């Protein structure tokens, strides 16, 4: 349930979580609030934890020992590389698209 589908590919929950964790480790609640702030997208709690599950399985993020019931998650080295690659691709596509729009 990532609302605001107008955000297009940038509303993919996995990409949003990776981008949020690029700043540093966060627990689920903080990730959700951060995504709302920087992307303007509300990710539902079920969708968020489904994406977290997939990212942990792919070894892109990892849980840390937390105090209380909320565990923080951190970006792994592999997660950083994947995020970097995806964002570079998006930037390349965005710049080509914008350039063509200006030419049109």
């Amino acid at each position, binding site marked *: 349930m990532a609302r605001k589908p107008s955000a297009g590919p940038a509303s993919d929950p996995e990409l949003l979580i990776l981008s949020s964790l690029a700043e540093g480790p966060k627990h689920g609640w903080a990730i959700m609030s951060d995504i709302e702030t920087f992307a303007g997208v509300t990710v539902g709690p*079920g969708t968020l934890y489904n994406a977290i599950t997939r990212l942990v399985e792919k070894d892109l993020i990892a849980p840390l020992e937390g105090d209380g019931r909320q565990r923080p998650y951190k970006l792994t080295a592999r997660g950083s590389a994947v995020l970097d690659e995806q964002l570079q691709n998006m930037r390349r596509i965005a710049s080509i698209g914008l350039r063509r729009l200006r030419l049109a």
Partner: protein
Amino acid sequence: MKTTIVSWLLRLYPKAWSAEYGAELADMLRARPLTVRVCSDIVLSALRQHARASQVASWVGVGLMLVTIGALASNIVEPPTHIWSPGLPRRAQPSFAEYIALLQRPLHSEFYVLVLVAIGFWTALRGKTSPGRAAIRVSMIASVPLVLVGLLMVSGVLGYSELNPGQSSTTLDERGILYTFYKGFQQIPGPAPLVMLLSPLLRLPGAWMWGSIGGWLGRKFADWRRPVSV
């Protein structure tokens, strides 16, 4: 009240998933308003987790269950005029209609046995459970429509008729809602409603046996493929 709803929502998830992430999700749900959108998001996400966690046997069982539903529905709407059975003497090459009639009884056919042997074979190669258990899972899921039909028959909602060779088939228009059993060459009586209801249980030993045979074949195949070390 909110705590109760949250605990009910969390019960929708697979147990293994809840053990890993349940406490965190519960904390998050307690801290925010439980709107319809949030609840539907949780339900959908729990379904996705079940789909991810389920074994191949469950999907095969669901597939076979759909075939069974189709067969039962077609038997009620357009019953077969006669059933060809491979073990019996036949007049000539069975016609296309006879093959269709055979498919109308999927859980009695060789097709069902083949599916059980195949799932046993696959489980021995890839699965984490025993081949016999995987076949039992397939059989139980596939039999759900039979239990429902049995319940409808026992409660009198669904009628039942037996046809002798030469008799014309009943139809929905002529006789109402009827499950039809064609006696065919063997002249055996059709299954009683109570037998229909309990038949899934009666199938379990057979399912286990066919699954185990498939598992044995799968292990032999794996041994044959394994390179011999010198």
